[in-house]
Each structure stands twice: as C-alpha cells, then as structure tokens.
C-alpha cells in the first residue's frame, strides 16, 4: 500500500498511546498507518497510492465536497434545533464526521448500493435523499421515510450491525446478477448493460463489537463479495470509548479475514474520497471486500438525549475541533485560489436555504393513518390483519363526531420516556 503517514494515536491521549503500544506488542508489528492527504493545516501531502486518486479531484469537485460538508453541517444544526423545539422526537447529530460521510458517499457510483446505520445524513445527501424525508423517522411519522429503490440508499438500521449482513447478501446478489448477465450475453451475443456495482456497509466503532460484523466479514471473505466495510471510528459508543471495543486499530481486523484494511484520516475529505474510490474499484473488479476505518470524532452528543459532559473531557473535544474537516478544506481552497469569498458566501446562503426548507417541510410532514400500518405489515393479504382492521374500523366509527377522550397523563409519560436509541 506504499508509505503512509504514521499513526501515532488511538485518540490522542497518553492512555491510548500505551494501549497502542500494547497492541504493537501483541501483534509484533506496528499498527496500520493512517492515510492522510490534507492535514489540519490545510496543506496537501503525498501518498504513493492515493495521491493518484486525489489528483483526479478537480477544483469544481473539491468545491462541491466543501459545499456538501457545509450543507450537512447546517442541516445538522437545524435538525438539532427542531428536536429542541419539540418538532422531532430525537436527533442523531453527525457534526465532526462530515468528511468521512461526504468523502465516501461522493466516491460511490449511482449503481452502487449503500447500507447506512442511522447517522449517515451526509451520505444520504450524496445519494440525493430528500433530507426532509430523512426526518420522518425522527419525527415519528415513519420507520423508514424514503424509497431505497430510488436512491440505492437503504433505510436506516437501528439494530446495530444488522445491515452489514444485508450489505454482504446484496453484494452476493450482484455477483449472481453478473453471472446471469454473462450467461445471457453468451446466449444472445450482446454484452451486459449493467455496470459493475459494489456495496458499502457503514457501521461504527461501537457496532464493530457486534457479532454480525464478524459474520458479515466471514461471509464477504468466503464469497469474495464486492463490499466495502466503512467503519466510522468516532471514538465514542454513547459513553464508552473505542478502547473498550478494541485493543488494536479496527482496520487491522481485516487481516484476520484475509482482505485489505485501511485506516484513513476521517476528517480529511480528500483522503476519504481517494481511499473509498480505490476500495470500490477493488470490489467492482472482483477482488473482494475492503475494510476502511475512518478515524474521526463525534464532536457532539450521541443523540439529543445524550450528555457527553458526563463521560469525556472538554479538552478532548477541543483537540478534535482543531482537526475540523471543513476548516482544513477551506484553508486549502483559499490558499490554492480555488475558491473566493463569493463562493463561501454562497455556501452559507445555500445552507440557510436548506435549513429553511427542512424547517418548513418538517412542520408539514403528515402524520400517517394507522391503516397504513395495517396495510404494510404483510405484502400479501392476511386474515388476522384484515380482522383486526375491520374491528378497528368498527370501533373508530363508534366515535364519529366525538372529540377524542382526554388522556392527561399521556403527554408527561411520553416526554419522560423519550427514546434513546442505538449506541
């Protein structure tokens, strides 16, 4: 993989330096180096493999990456505000992880298929998911919110790591499609109209401890499935630090499954884009899975129900703010003369417009009729569902013209039991 800048930390603290040294002792070799192209100082470095990929990024693309990151950060602020105003039951902020999400999402092709966790709002943006639809789940009007067939961006999955297996199965389906297309092409003399596709499975450092991640990597390796495992190591699984999930850099785990593992600076959008593009090519070319560990940081809370002051130091947050993904790209764009004041002003105006759109649309998200839940429990007709729906219709008809009964205690109970989903 060439020479990479050395990784010197798990999360920058002395305790974790010791842990890393322990890991080296266990493994008998240095932990995987971290790929970094654009440092916090805004200066572009060199990598023997990934500079070639980064050099394909035109100034226009780089400006686009910045605009995407700024847009999703503005969206994150707005969604947090909507939760505080009671318009959303819960919000899962992504601030700090913009580069990991925008860089990887923009490296994907339309034919690729994405399986997110529940924090990939930035990836959703790159897949053209309507961000207002993204809020349906958090407003409590849908358990999904968008049609994954429109964007190849699967629904959020809240049961940690379950989607990593779905991603591998989907990739196994792509392999079979290619074989079917090849055999059909042999018969008809035409070539396959489908471009080669790959899958990205997102998960986090917390989910990396789930058995499904292990099983998904075993299956992916056994069948050489075209899947990229994209782990955002944001250092905290709610209140538990990464050091509790792993004694070695997560990217090193790939070695045990027999495929490449790369740690990339997750706050460096250029490196993330380059590494993901390389990994997707690798997968599409039939060379099998890749694990990417994007080394980043959850600057905010786990969710709006979380309080990070109870478990981590402000100094740590400040240290990571100094590595901000937007700041470093802005420095680079300015120093290279690729973007001027007008550009940044427009990015800000666009962000405010997006926020206004999201605010407006969230208020208008319609509360569904519970009849849709009856209708969607099964794909085919089901006598029990039909019977219960008929009962519900009859019961409801009995209240025609009446106000619903008062339930004074309900509001208080709902507020107290606000959901604290996920890890």
């Amino acid at each position, binding site marked *: 993989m060439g020479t990479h800048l050395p990784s010197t930390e798990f999360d920058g603290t002395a305790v974790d330096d010791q842990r890393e040294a322990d890991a080296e002792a266990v493994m008998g070799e240095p932990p995987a180096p971290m790929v970094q192209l654009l440092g916090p100082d805004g200066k572009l470095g060199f990598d023997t493999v990934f500079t070639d990929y980064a050099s394909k990024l035109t100034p226009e693309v780089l400006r686009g990456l910045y605009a995407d990151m700024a847009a999703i950060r503005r969206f994150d602020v707005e969604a947090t505000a909507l939760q505080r105003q009671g318009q959303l039951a819960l919000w899962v902020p992504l601030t700090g992880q913009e580069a990991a999400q925008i860089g990887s999402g923009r490296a994907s092709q339309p034919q690729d298929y994405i399986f997110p966790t529940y924090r990939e709002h930035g990836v959703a943006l790159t897949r053209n998911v309507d961000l207002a639809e993204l809020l349906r789940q958090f407003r409590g009007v849908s358990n999904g919110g968008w049609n994954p067939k429109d964007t190849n961006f699967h629904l959020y999955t809240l049961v940690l790591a*379950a989607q990593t*297996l779905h991603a591998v199965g989907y990739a196994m389906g792509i392999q079979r*499609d290619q074989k079917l297309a090849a055999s059909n092409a042999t018969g008809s003399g035409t070539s396959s109209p489908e471009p080669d596709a790959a899958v990205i499975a997102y998960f986090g450092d917390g989910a990396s401890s789930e058995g*499904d991640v292990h099983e998904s990597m075993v*299956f992916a390796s056994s069948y050489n499935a075209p899947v990229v495992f994209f782990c955002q190591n944001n250092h905290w699984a709610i209140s538990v630090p990464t050091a509790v999930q792993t004694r070695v850099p997560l990217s090193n785990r790939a070695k045990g499954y027999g495929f490449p593992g790369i740690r990339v600076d997750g706050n460096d959008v250029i490196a993330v884009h380059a590494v993901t593009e390389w990994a997707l090519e690798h997968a599409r070319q039939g060379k099998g899975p890749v694990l990417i560990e994007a080394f980043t940081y959850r600057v905010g809370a786990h969710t709006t129900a979380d309080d990070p002051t109870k478990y981590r130091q402000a100094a740590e947050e400040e240290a990571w703010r100094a590595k901000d993904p937007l700041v470093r790209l802005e420095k680079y764009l300015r120093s290279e003369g690729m973007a001027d004041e007008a550009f940044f002003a427009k990015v800000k105006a666009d962000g405010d417009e997006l926020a206004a759109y999201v605010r407006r649309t969230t208020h208008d998200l319609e509360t569904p009729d519970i009849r849709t839940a009856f209708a969607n429990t099964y794909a085919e007709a089901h006598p029990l569902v039909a019977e219960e729906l008929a009962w519900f219709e009859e019961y409801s008809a009995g209240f025609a013209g009446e106000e619903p009964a008062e339930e004074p205690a309900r509001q208080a109970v709902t507020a107290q039991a606000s959901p604290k989903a996920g890890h």
Partner: protein
Amino acid sequence: MTTMTIAKAINEGLRAALTDNPKSLLMGEDIGALGGVYRVTDGLIGEFGPDRVVDTPLAESGIIGTAIGLALRGYTPVCEIQFDGFVFPGFNQITTQLAKIHSRSNGNLSVPVVVRIPYGGGIGSIEHHSESPEALFAHTAGLRIITPSNPHDAYWMIQQAVQCQDPVIVFEPKRRYWLKGEVDVAAPGTAGDPFKAHVLRAGTEATIVAYGPLVPVALAAANAAAEDGHSLEVIDLRSISPIDFDTVTASVQKTGRLIVAHEAPTFGGIGGEIAARISERAFHSLEAPVIRVGGFHMPYPVAKVEEDYLPDIDRILEALDRALSY
C-alpha cells in the same frame, strides 16, 4: 400419484422451486455435498451448482442476514437452519429485520425469504435438537409460519412458501421425515392454500387440533376413541401464522369441544391462542373448556425421559375424558 417420504417430498419441492424460479437459491450449513444433515437437499448441488445451493459459513445470523440482502437484490433465498435449537443466533435477524422490512419501508421493499427449520422431539437426540419454538415466531408480526404433516403437503407447501412475497418459516416435523405418503406432483388439489387448515377426519363429539409431528398422533387417538365409541374430528392446522380460525370455529360449533395438541410447552403457546380465539368465537357452542395438551414448562428434557414429555395418544385421550366429563 407417487409415494415418497416427507424428506423426499421437500427435496422434490425444492427442486421444482429452483427450476421454476431462476432467482431462487438454497443457503445453509452442510446442504451441498452432504445434502443436509437430514439429506433434504440431497443431490441438488449437483443439479444447480454451488451458486444456487450454497454451503454457508457456520453462522445462523449470517445466513438469515445475507439472505435478506439477497432478497433486497431480487433473489428468493431458502435458508436451512440445521436444528430448531440453533435458530436463535439468527433470531435477531428474523424478528427485528426480516419480519419488519416490508412494514418499515412502507411497503416499498419485500423480503421473500424462506426459513426451513426441522423441529420437534421424539428422535432420542441430545440437547437443542428437539425443540418446538414456533410460538416465539408466531408472536412476531410480519412472518408467516407453516408446518406440513404429510408428503403431499410438504411437496406443495415448500413451493408455496417460495412463491409468497412475505417471509415464511417452514417448520418441518423432523421425526416424520421418513413418513411415507402419496404425492400428486401434477396438482396441489386441496393443498392449494398453505394457510388453510384441513379437516382430516370428521367427528361429532370433540375436535382435536394438531399440527406437524402430532397430526399422526391425533389421528391415532381418534381411532382409539372410536373403538370406545367416541366420534372425534381431527384438524391439521397446517398454518400457525396466520391460523385458519374459520375452519376451527366451524368444527367446534359442530362438536362443542376442543382439544389442542402440540409438542411445544402449553404456557404462552399456540394452544392458548386458539383457546382464547375459540372462546370468543364459539363461546355458546362450547360444552367444556378448551383443553391444551402439550409440553411442560421446562427445557426440553433429556432423551431418556422425552416419552414422558411428549403428548401421545393417551395424553390426548385423557384430555378427551376431561372434556367429555363436563
């Protein structure tokens, strides 16, 4: 008509499904060269190749989870879980993912995955190889659960499961795998609807509802009762979710008494659900409380004492005595 065992009938049904639907495939542990521990997939890898008869890593969550992904890509996976007691590593994927994806996608996505599970006891096996966990799945909305009791049903029900757009769990009565019967491979006949119960024997004094491995026991009990001068109606439930309450209700309205028999523990089981529904639907027809015959509230016992655990003819006849004494 062809005579075959239940195991062979499922094998032929899978062969037909793989032939009819080029997007269908089988997944499971040891289902390839070995043909499965019960040889239900015997010979299929030779005919359809390793991409369609997939020997998987030994990981049940992985089997179900990747099957979901394949279904999202347009495939119809049929998963084999090796034994009932080993489904639980895959329980999370089945209940939180497979059962819910159609609903949470607001109907945009369907995951027509079939999960085959050999279940039940009476084979003298070791721990975790004799369980009846069907109620745990029946309680989960989004799943359909069927269980054949004879070769003809087995042949058609596995194919109907593959054709269904919902996830279907097929519980296969492993101690009846070698039960022989006539199979009409040309037409399903009365087996056209896998979710409909069948009245196997008409009677007037009491109804026995059974499914899967206990259907032959229920029929034998009805024979024994007839020798004592009692007329029993026997219903093979066939589908555990949904349950064909119309057929059961009509029978109880005629006989006035209901006994439900299953190997699974009675507490929180399918029998309790049937008892509750029938008490609502046929309260005025009932001459006696609905009586459940089933396993005890204990982990499935060791093989040497399983005869004391499993419902048999005498247990059903004892329940009949109680029902008739009201």
